[in-house]
């Protein structure tokens, strides 16, 4: 039962987390669920690497965290994007788009 999904490229996890958090403040489990949805369709994310990544982003002050009541009524740690995190996300999106565009261009040329 080999999965057709490919493993997530190195360094992309941080970008995905920033993207998910950018929509609204969300707790770790919420991010895991979103990742799982993505995983099911496209890429494979190891949940074990989620929390180290979250704390790394918090250390870099791209994410801020706050304990708040969650939808189940229990307190959970909610992550939100900081201003510098927003900038970082924009920068990563931009460079990703450039990279993807460049790769596409090369493929197109090769196909001709």
């Amino acid at each position, binding site marked *: 039962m080999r999965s057709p999904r490919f493993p997530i490229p190195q360094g992309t996890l941080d970008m995905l987390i920033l993207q998910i958090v950018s929509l609204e403040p969300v707790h770790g489990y919420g991010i895991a669920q979103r990742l799982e949805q993505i995983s099911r369709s496209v890429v494979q994310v190891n949940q074990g690497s989620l929390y*180290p990544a979250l704390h790394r982003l918090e250390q870099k002050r791209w994410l801020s965290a706050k304990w708040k009541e969650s939808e189940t009524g229990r307190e959970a740690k909610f992550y939100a994007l900081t201003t510098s995190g927003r900038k970082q996300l924009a920068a990563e999106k931009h460079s990703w788009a450039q990279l993807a565009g460049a790769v596409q261009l090369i493929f197109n040329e090769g196909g001709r």
Partner: protein
Amino acid sequence: MIGKLANWLRRNKLESGLERELRYHLDRRISDLEKRGLPSGEARRQALLELGGIAQIQEEVRDIWLTRWLRDFTYDLRLSLRSFLRTPSFCITAVLSLVLGIGATTAVYSLVDQVLLHALPVRQPERLVLIDWQGDQVANGFGSWNLMSYPICRDLDEQKQFFEGVFCRALTNVDLSTGGDYSAATVEIVSANYFSVLGVGPALGRVLANDDDGAPNANPVAVLSYDFWQTQLGGAPDVVGRKVLVNRHPLTIIGVAASTFKGIDVGQVPSMWIPASMSAEAIPGFNDLLDRRRRWMQVLGRLNPGVTLQQAQAGLQPWFKAMLQEDTRRAGFPVITADRRREFLGSSLVLTEAPQGHSSLRRHLSEPLWVLSAVTAVLLGLACLNVSGLFLARGSAQDREIGTRIALGASRGRLGRQLLADSILIALAGGLLGIAAAPIAVRTLIAFLPKGIAPTALHAGVDARVLLFAFMASVAAGLLSGLAPAWQAGRHSLVTSLRERGGTAGGIRLRKVIVTAQIALTLTLVVGAALFLRTLDELMAKGPGFKTSSLISFGIDPQRSGYAPAEANRLIRNIDEAIQQSPITQASAIARFPLLTGGSWNDPMTILTDKRITTDDVNLNSVTPGFFPTMGVRIVAGRNFNERDEHAPVNSGSAIVNEAFAKRYLEGRSPLGARICEGTGPEAKPNIEIVGVVSNFNYRGLREQSEQVFFPFFADAGANGTFYVRVRGAPESFLSSFRAIVHSADPALPMMDFRTLDEQVDRSLNTEHMLATLSGSFGMIALLLSLVGLYGVMSFVVTQRTREIGIRLALGAMRWSAIWLILRDALAMILTGTGIGLPFVWTLGRLVESQLYGVKASDPAVLVITILVLCSAGLGAALIPARRASSINPTDALRVE
């Protein structure tokens, strides 16, 4: 880095937060899975599986918080602390060695920082420059160094393309009263832009502004220093508008300067600042403020932003050359020879950076303080070596533990780091205690400094810079002392350490290297100490050239109390007569300038024999006829002054010269009858007849041997005097008698600098005392440290070779041969250390040459004695373990294994 340290401090909170976060995740996942129909046990299992191990996530996150090495390091420190608590005696010895090293280095650094390095507390001190005249100013002057005239400073202030402003200043002593008695005080005479150029504001009232410096005598105002305001006026808030009396002239206080500002001369904290227009009031008899040929003030400027020192210096020269030309055409420019005129016109201005202001204390102390810094740095290095040795000794005791850890898979790097953590912990403990001890040490050091410096000038407190220095010194010491042990641990051989009982051969070799290095460092310190002690000894034995016992001196300056010169001389005469009649007086005399204070009255002279000779600067003084007999100075040829000389006209009377003068300028011919005068120009008229020659004695200080000329006291125009009295009995007890005599002549006249001549000699040898005492104590400590090191290594060698020695003795070797076996080892170390140390001694010796007197840096006697002392002390230390070796019982020794 700071963030990580903050994380370390709140690590408990972080841990519990992470745990809560992970539990929330798990609980939600389990309940979600259960909703999908999984049985609860299965749901839990799958949730945990997905997450991939809670403990592993926690570890990973911790690494993010603290980074790996920091975590390891905190762990190492904890382990070190535990092992130190197990071996307190080791710990105390190591910490104490470093306290000595770090404490001494920090204390000396504190002085170096305060006296030599600290920038003035003013706006952008880095843009301040000292402006000095290089060449012949064709000017008369008084004061210390780097002097120019007031009008030239005002001209410089107008060179606005280079300077924001240029100010001048001069320190002078005055009689000062804030309402009560007069006392002597230091004031700084400044141009009115002083405060604005420096960027110093008032704490109260206002500081001097540009219109406070108008025509001479026009601005009777003063700005108090904060210290003076606090200590002498109790910080009274209504002080602005009050009057102070400076040499009996009332000045209105307009404000108090900012509290941090203590003038621009570390060591001389002025009581107040007075505009230059009031200089005639501050310096009695001085009316030459506007004279361009009167040099007495230091000139400092603030460079414009963007102008470099080199640009300003080069840019100033054209203006300066034009000014020189203009000066020669001014009315009143002295008539000078063509040579001298060429020299004058060839003068240039030299700018030097002056962020620390201008200080004569710095000039005197910079070299001795750098010497002391070097000495304490060597001492700290020695202490580090000592700790290294101790660690190595402990290391060989811990051999089996280390071997076991390696066997269990510890990496060598990790073990080395553990040892570094050990040594840094020890060093930080040493540093902490060193800082605690530093104020006491600094106070001790300050007590050695020249007595003349202001008590508020230097402080013994530990400020941020000193703290930073002590911290850096501690970390450096930690790394340095941990280096050898860590290296040794890295070379650890697993097999041998588990097999052998004692230490490894490598360990003992490294310890021997360390002791050898210690001996080399000790040699330099002990030789240095011996040189400074010899210097002090030579100077004390030589003496000033006159008898100091039972001799006292004190000064008066009646002009400051408002006396006209003629009245002042009458007063001095009255006091002199009263002293002569006192029963405690054996002999007494007056000199214009005090001896052995560092200063002098000096001028070049013209001598007329069969030809005209001009001299370099000659030290001058005027004295009463009793002076030479009172001081015990011999009259070698001719005669002493007499009453008739006192009444002769100033420029055609008589003079006495010393032997040095006769030898240098008259080349063995008799100087009697030759005619001399002050000054060297064509206008100089040598009409004063030399009537006598006296033996040489010191004028400015004990090291100097200068040409001197004396004039009759009452014949010259001055009106102050220093009394020299030889008394019957202990001189210290007569202060009140002399005070009463001065008091009955004028109750309001302050008496200055009452002291015995023995005390004066001590004061003039201040720096020599400081260097001798401190380098002597540091040398002793160094010797002690290396003897302890040597003893430790040799004891270890004996323990290690017990079996071998036992076998030798069993085979019939003599006891003394066992002793020799050990001593030979020690002697090899001592001699190697000496051999390594000698080049250092030679290099350092050349650096301190200028501080020495009567002894050469490479003095063979000093070297030989020091090496002998080192050898005998070292052999003495090695003898104790050697004797133990000789008393080994062969049967016991063989049974040990």
